[in-house]
């Protein structure tokens, strides 16, 4: 019932917005102004001609796809790949391959791959050439394998970039999140974890690992989408540092440049966003990925420093991380620091609300919670959480035994929010049915 209640409230708010908009009339005018005629005229021509109907329809549909997509697109239309079918990205745009479990493989321009098989736990994909960004949704039974030449990358729920160049027999893997296991070409099992970049050359049946510096954590399909295709240059001779099997020494690459147009880029596959001057602290990236436990572990030892140096938005985030991982005292410390350093700001008011939530949680300190909710209402009477704060003030005043105050607050609540989620509580405090 509570989901329906939330849904009805959302629908009511949306309907108010939709009713006040000119959106439909603008779209209608646009359709009548030419776009509808354009669409139907092409379809009509196709029907008129028996001999050319199929050909014209194909051309018309292709033109209309281009027409109605209209705006510049950085990617090709996402594809749900069938087992066995080759998928090839175009010269200039990446090709996303989407799977029903939410996993995704984005082929960089000119990359080519094939889904070899699929089942309910995952898929086996063969990367014939080029770069791919792989994002596999983790579930307990997840089992994915990405094959590239003689190598196989086993995946259980991770994000990473990989590149395979068959001419040079070079495999590169850069981990954004999680870990993978690479096997093949006599490698044994090589585990690669978050932040690592590795590169293997397969030489006469032996894998030779090249050292690559750790790459920035941030990796996204957009990194592939935003990069230009690699220039056609002769590959540099790799310098082996840790041969897995030393039976065959690596010879400098003096063979002709690969017939494939792309070459292994010297830059890490996963590149940071160009506009970001420095990587955010690790805990922020982990928190953004909802890995709150890891985020708290990463920041715990420097909590005091963060309290004195982080901005107000990050302090709210940090307090949330601490709260969600059960570190109540630490969360309170962060929020109090925020209120001290950013006094009278909107986020300081938010911190007051959060302090109220911490105090109210599991009935820890109802009276203290009531004071914090009252503080929020005092500092931000029209704030985005005003209704919630008033409702919780009413509740905590009642829990703290301040019956008269709770009834006054209940009257205010019913007056201001007659259809709010706590009207039943307000009415019960006032003795209504």
């Amino acid at each position, binding site marked *: 019932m*509570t*989901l*329906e*209640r*939330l*849904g*009805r*409230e*959302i*629908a009511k*708010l*949306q309907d108010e917005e*939709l009713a006040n*908009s000119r*959106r*439909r009339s*603008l*779209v*209608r005018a*646009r*359709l009548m102004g030419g776009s*509808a*005629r354009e*669409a*139907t005229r092409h*379809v*009509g021509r196709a029907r008129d001609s028996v001999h050319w109907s199929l050909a014209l329809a194909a051309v018309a*549909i292709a033109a*209309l796809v281009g027409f*109605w997509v209209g*705006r510049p697109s950085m*990617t090709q239309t996402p594809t749900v790949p069938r087992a066995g079918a080759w998928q090839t990205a175009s010269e200039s745009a990446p090709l*996303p391959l*989407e799977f029903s479990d*939410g996993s995704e493989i*984005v082929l960089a321009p000119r990359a080519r791959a094939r889904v070899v098989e699929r089942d309910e736990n995952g898929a086996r994909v063969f990367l014939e050439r080029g770069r791919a960004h792989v994002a596999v*949704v983790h579930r307990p039974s997840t089992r994915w394998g990405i094959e590239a030449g003689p190598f196989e990358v086993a995946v259980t729920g991770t994000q990473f970039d990989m590149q395979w160049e068959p001419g040079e027999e070079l495999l590169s893997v850069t981990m954004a999140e999680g870990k993978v296991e690479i096997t093949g070409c006599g490698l044994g099992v090589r585990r690669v974890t978050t932040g690592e970049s590795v590169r293997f050359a397969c030489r006469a049946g032996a894998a030779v690992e090249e050292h690559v510096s750790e790459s920035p954590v*941030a990796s*996204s399909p*957009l990194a592939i*989408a935003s990069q230009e295709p690699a220039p056609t240059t002769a590959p540099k001779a790799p310098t082996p540092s840790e041969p897995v099997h030393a039976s065959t020494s690596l010879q400098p690459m003096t063979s002709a440049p690969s017939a494939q147009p792309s070459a292994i880029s010297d830059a890490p596959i996963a590149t940071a*966003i160009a506009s970001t001057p420095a990587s*955010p602290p690790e805990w*922020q*990236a982990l*928190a953004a990925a909802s890995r709150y436990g890891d985020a708290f572990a990463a920041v715990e030892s420097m909590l005091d420093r963060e309290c004195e140096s982080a901005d107000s938005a990050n302090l*709210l985030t940090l307090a*949330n991380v601490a709260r969600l991982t059960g570190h109540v005292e630490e969360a309170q410390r962060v929020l109090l620091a925020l209120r001290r350093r950013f006094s009278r700001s*909107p986020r300081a*008011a*938010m911190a007051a*609300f959060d302090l109220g939530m911490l105090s109210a949680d599991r009935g820890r300190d109802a009276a203290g919670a009531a004071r914090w909710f009252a503080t929020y209402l005092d500092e931000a009477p*029209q704030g*985005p*959480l*005003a*209704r919630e704060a008033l*409702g919780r003030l009413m509740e905590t005043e009642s829990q703290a035994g301040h019956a008269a105050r709770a009834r006054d607050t209940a009257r205010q609540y019913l007056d201001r929010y007659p259809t709010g*989620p706590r009207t*039943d509580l307000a009415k019960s405090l006032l003795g209504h049915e």
Partner: protein
Amino acid sequence: MPTALAAPPRSERVRKDDGTALLDALRVNDSDAAAALFDRYGEHVERVLARVLGVDSELQDLLHEVFIRALVGIADVRDPALLKSWITSIAVFTARECIRRRSRRRWLKFLPWSEVPEQVAPPFDFAGSEVLRATYALLDRLPADERIAFTLRFIDGMELTETASACRVSLATIKRRLSRAEARLRAAAQEHPAVAEWLEEAR
């Protein structure tokens, strides 16, 4: 002596019929038919898009896109009684593509209990808009198919069979998606008091 009533204009027939005349008119590129189609289903499609995506700046383009696709693909519709559910499906799949597109472009994002602008916001129903904003922030974290199932069922209020039809999946599949969506949403709602409040049982 009774006189024969003049036949209503063709456009009037198209607008008032049960779908047969509209479908026939669309197939022969009747100039009024596109307008009639939009007048009949424009509000419904806009609402479906808004339920799934939230009301935002892309809604206008997406609404236009749905009707262009409908006009191009109208030959696929055999039964006029299915016209509404067919165009609903187009809206759902258009929204789905939009969700996927947005998720690829989204950078690292974290949602604390609130995201407060530095400026003081103008006085309007902040409480109402906060639950709206927070709900869609939570919905952004669901897989596309679960989000769509949840919004159609619980926000638009579609029946289960209607929801399954709009998503072109079986009843069993839509129930699974709803179950997962509900579990995820309830777990994540603790980060957003504006939403958590609505999900708490009435006392």
